[in-house]
């Protein structure tokens, strides 16, 4: 009995140790499977692949510390359909992620970039062939933009997904040919035909502006889901715009060039 108890305890300790094991990234990152734990500058200096291993939370790179800066440096970050390319954990506030000029794509992930932290800046790299390019999950004051020439395209669900966040901003991005929508603000992984957000999850106060190429020709280009209210969409060129709220609720659509819209309150 004593031996059995000892064995159980040892197994438990090993399991806990394994679950908590994390490999800290060095300032020069050359393979997947590490965590950024220092508030300093990191650069990716080689193409990264899921085959090199992932973190315990299934990311190529995790960021768990505030005020880190990560430069992708035009290298590919390639997954195999699951996991997260770069995961900014809730403690990674004030992260600055710089995609740089047009380079190799971030591709093959369930979420290319997922931010769970507040006050993050994402200067987006070339994102292609993920389920969703960028997921902002219940974030506050994240800012997503991109250099001219980069693009978010051919992601099977969304280009950018704001799920339950507020006061986030998207500007200067170019999306096209994403599976359901280029930009989706809401809680459904299947688009506006799915389940809307619960009241506690609504996305509000987000500002989507100065995007001159939200050109998705799939079902939707830009969607504000039912229950996503008090958002502002202005000064964009949008192929297909959709607001799931009656009379757009308190969403403001203004100064956009829209090809097709589902409601007269979209301007």
């Amino acid at each position: 009995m004593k031996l059995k108890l000892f064995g159980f305890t040892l197994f438990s300790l090993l399991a806990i140790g394994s679950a908590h094991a994390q490999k800290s990234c060095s300032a020069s990152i050359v393979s997947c499977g590490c965590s950024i734990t220092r508030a300093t500058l990191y650069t990716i200096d080689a193409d990264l692949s899921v085959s090199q291993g992932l973190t315990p939370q299934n990311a190529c790179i995790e960021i768990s510390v505030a005020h880190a800066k990560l430069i992708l440096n035009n290298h590919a970050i390639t997954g195999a359909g699951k996991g997260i390319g770069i995961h900014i954990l809730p403690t990674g506030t004030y992260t600055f992620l710089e995609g740089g000029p047009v380079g190799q794509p971030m591709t093959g992930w369930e979420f290319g970039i997922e931010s769970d932290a507040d006050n993050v800046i994402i200067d987006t790299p070339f994102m292609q062939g993920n389920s969703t390019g960028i997921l902002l999950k219940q974030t506050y004051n994240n800012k997503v933009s991109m250099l001219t020439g980069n693009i978010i395209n051919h992601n099977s669900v969304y280009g950018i997904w704001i799920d339950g966040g507020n006061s986030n901003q998207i500007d200067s991005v170019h999306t096209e040919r994403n599976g359901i929508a280029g930009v989706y603000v809401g809680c459904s992984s299947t688009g506006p035909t799915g389940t809307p957000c619960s009241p506690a999850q609504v996305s509000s106060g987000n500002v989507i502006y100065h995007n001159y190429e939200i050109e998705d020709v799939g079902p939707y280009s830009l969607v504000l889901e039912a229950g996503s209210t008090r958002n502002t969409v202005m000064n964009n060129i949008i192929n297909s715009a959709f607001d799931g709220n009656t009379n757009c609720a308190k969403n403001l659509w203004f100064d956009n060039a829209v090809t097709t819209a589902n409601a007269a309150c979209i301007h």
Partner: protein
Amino acid sequence: MKTSSVGSLLLSTLLAASAGAQNLCGHSITSCGCTITTGGDYVVNANLSSTQGLTALGGCVDIKAANTKLFLNGYNVSGGVSTSAIGVHVLPAAKYTVIEETNATNLAGNKHNFVQNWTYGIKSDADNVIIDVDSIQFNGVGIFLNKTYNNRIVGGNESFNKQYGIWIVGGNSNQVNASFSEYDGIAGIYVGCSLTGPSGTPCLPAEASTGNVIYSYTSEDFEQPAQPYGVVLELNSVRNTVMASSSGTHLQFDLFDGNSSCADNVWVANFFGTVNQSCIH
């Protein structure tokens, strides 16, 4: 004595009334000289000119209310009659203001509009302001962030201004991206406290500008060098980040840091020709 007191009281009352008098902006703005005092959406529906009058603070449009959205809607905001005037002035109480100029329909038709010929084209004294204005040119300073937090300047062309395209003084955590400048008198972006560039007086330590982030920014005199500096972080402006920006063909330095070894400023992944220190990358 009593008459004197009554006269004094009357004068004080008149002065107070005069100082308090302000022309409130309607939600459709068609002339300079009004003040926004209630948050909400305001749309400019005519070209605005300083000849139509200014506010008591010397602004074409002053914004005093939080959560205001001002759409310039493709119209010009033009100064020129005063030596000290401001196109759009966001006062300290007006946090979370959004100023939006060019509408996408106009842009698709290549129609550009200007905030021009002011001492400051746009001045922000408030936190959490978004400025998305296409062309802010021929002013003393294009955009002036005065001790602000978390202002965001996106997508503008701040060129041909006498001193700076963008001036950040004493602010922190402001961000500039996707903007452009050429042919400004001193610099495209200047972070510091001198109106005459890095040869002037630096900030006091208490006025230092920190935590500002400049990225995806371009400053270049395409035809011939004329602008002395591209981006300047002045002495005592520390812990700022300049990243993935392009600056070239300037008379002095494309990128300039006035701090010894750049202090805690981060310059990385930029494209440039000339810099004043090897810590700029």
